[in-house]
């Protein structure tokens, strides 16, 4: 079995993996610890699953620790998440206490590892207080924020800021997410793992099988939106766009969403979606479990066009995933979608269901353009949004923090 780096070399080229090796040669043997709040499920865990072995393959000594709490802790951090994304959420005092106590007990457990590390990456707000709880730390501590904090609910941000401000650096996904902090704020967009179940190549039989599994018509063009059932993703707007386009071209729509059980609003939105779909046999609303990565992969590959008609979006890795499968994306003109959907090149940016319908019709009538855009979309992801690019930037950041904060660091 070849190494992960070798497999990536076959995808992105030896130039890219050589660059990683050159950067990593400055960091060989350093102890790196990542801390997040879950080992399974969610984008951060998916990234760390591959990131940590890759770092080790490059000669670093990387490990991954997880903060684990009780119900109060998770209720608190779920509310943090919503508040940081701009929802005016009230958090009762006992939940703050649960948050602080979980961090204190985690610090007791992890203190020797964390204080001895050369670099500690703390992912998102859940473990943020660990810095202050490790006073004998000797390494550099970096807060990696994966959340859209462009307009945080201020009282919650003020509370978290006191924990975050003491870090040596922070990383945000987009410039608009950066905040007033007293340390350097690096901008590093997220990425996808081309080798994961969600993005790996599938054989044709597996792709075709989704038609049978979900009762799809293999002869009819397929529109797909993969997203949680959330109003910010505008699933009802997607149905409207489908109906407008269907007047002119035969079409079927698949709305594939994650389980809504942990989202109090999710069930309501799912009801709205089912109601809007009515009894149209060509609308397929799929409520998939959170680990249905391979199914999502096959659906994305089976689709003709992928939609992400969000009205608000953080980065939108689901867009990256679709583009990696050579699909043009019709996306909402917002957030990180703008960084990926290059209007008229890798897809179209739209502001309304009417816009999405218009572009759908255009692409289905111009198959050559659809395929050309798909090719460009895949190339854009290969150059910019695969794990190797994110790893390169993280390694560069580590070298930069090791050798000083100057604007130009020249190493012999």
């Amino acid at each position, binding site marked *: 079995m070849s190494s992960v780096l070798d497999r990536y070399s076959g995808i992105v080229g030896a*130039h*890219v993996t*050589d*660059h990683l090796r*050159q*950067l990593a040669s*400055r960091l060989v043997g350093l102890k790196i610890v990542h801390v997040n709040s879950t080992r399974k499920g969610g984008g951060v865990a998916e990234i760390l699953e591959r990131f940590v072995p890759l770092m080790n393959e490059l000669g670093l000594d990387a490990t991954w620790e997880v903060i684990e709490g009780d119900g109060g802790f998770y209720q608190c951090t779920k509310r943090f998440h919503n508040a940081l994304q701009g929802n005016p959420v009230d958090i009762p005092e006992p939940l703050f206490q649960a948050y602080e106590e979980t961090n204190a007990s985690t610090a007791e457990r992890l203190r020797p590892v964390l204080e001895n590390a050369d670099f500690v990456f703390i992912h998102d707000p859940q473990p943020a207080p660990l810095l202050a709880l490790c006073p004998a730390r000797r390494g550099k501590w970096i807060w990696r924020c994966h959340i859209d904090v*462009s307009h945080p609910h201020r009282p919650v941000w003020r509370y978290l800021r006191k924990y975050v401000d003491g870090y040596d650096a922070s990383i*945000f996904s987009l*410039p*608009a997410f*950066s905040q*007033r902090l007293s340390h*350097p*704020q*690096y*901008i*590093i*967009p997220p990425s996808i793992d081309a080798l994961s179940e969600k993005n790996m190549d599938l054989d044709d039989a597996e792709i075709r099988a989704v038609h049978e599994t979900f009762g799809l018509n293999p002869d009819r063009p397929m529109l797909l939106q993969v997203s949680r059932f959330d109003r910010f993703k505008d699933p009802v707007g997607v149905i409207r766009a489908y109906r407008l386009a269907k007047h002119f071209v035969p079409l079927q729509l698949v709305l594939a969403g994650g389980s809504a059980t942990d989202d109090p609003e999710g069930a309501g939105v799912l009801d709205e979606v089912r109601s809007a779909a009515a009894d149209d046999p060509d609308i397929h609303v799929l409520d998939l479990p959170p680990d249905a990565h391979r199914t999502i992969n096959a659906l994305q590959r089976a689709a003709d066009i992928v939609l992400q008609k969000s009205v608000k979006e953080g980065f939108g890795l689901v867009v990256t995933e679709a583009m990696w499968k050579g699909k043009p994306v019709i996306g909402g003109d*917002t*957030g990180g979608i703008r*960084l990926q959907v*290059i209007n008229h*090149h*890798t897809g179209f940016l739209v502001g309304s269901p009417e816009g999405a319908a218009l572009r759908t019709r255009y692409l289905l009538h111009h198959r050559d353009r659809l395929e050309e855009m798909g090719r460009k979309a895949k*190339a*854009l992801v290969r*150059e*910019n*949004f695969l794990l190797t*690019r994110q790893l*390169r*930037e993280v*390694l*560069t*950041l580590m*070298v*930069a923090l090791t*050798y000083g904060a*100057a*604007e*130009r*660091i*020249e*190493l*012999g």
Partner: protein
Amino acid sequence: MAEPFGVQGCALLAIATGKRAQTLRELRDHLETVDQECIYYHFWGDMLRPSFDEPEFSNDFASWARHGLHDHKLAERLGVIDPTDYENLEDLRLELIEVIEQRLDEGEMVPWSRADQQFHFLRSQIVVFDTKTRIRKPSRLATIVPKMTAGSVFYHFIDARRRTSYNLDDFSSWLWGFGNTYEDLIGRIAAVDPYFSTLAETRLRLSSLFRSYFSGRKR
């Protein structure tokens, strides 16, 4: 005899400055005070950061004028600015301010963007490291350059212009060390315009140029 050519690796990071503009006047005001590294990043950063290979405009100011302010005329005027025409970043900064002020003078209203399309000033941090690869004979450029990472191409062919007294790329500087022997080749290198190309394209053009020159097929 010139010293061997030491191939350097280079990687660039983007750092938020906290400065942002929502109107053209705010953009002008910030341009007067931001670090040179900001100007550098917004002209050259595209090459080493996630970006599209066929951008409509080659610098971020022009792109924002088009997509943030929806001012096509200003976008075209900013887009045509080629940073290699300016001796240093201060001259480039002055040109930017000049173009923007002219546009402000022409209009009755100050162009503005939506709140979610503000211009965010970023600055670059560059890490340069020795790859330990050495080129002793100029003819070896034909085999080493095609294998260079994008970072090395950026460092030696683009970044070099702000490090050397005559705004030369590192290949040309090194070749001058052999007297006039490679004057013809240096002239050809000078004709490679890096600003409107990707680093991969620039590497391809340089590779092809060195290969054809050293294989004796001078065209």
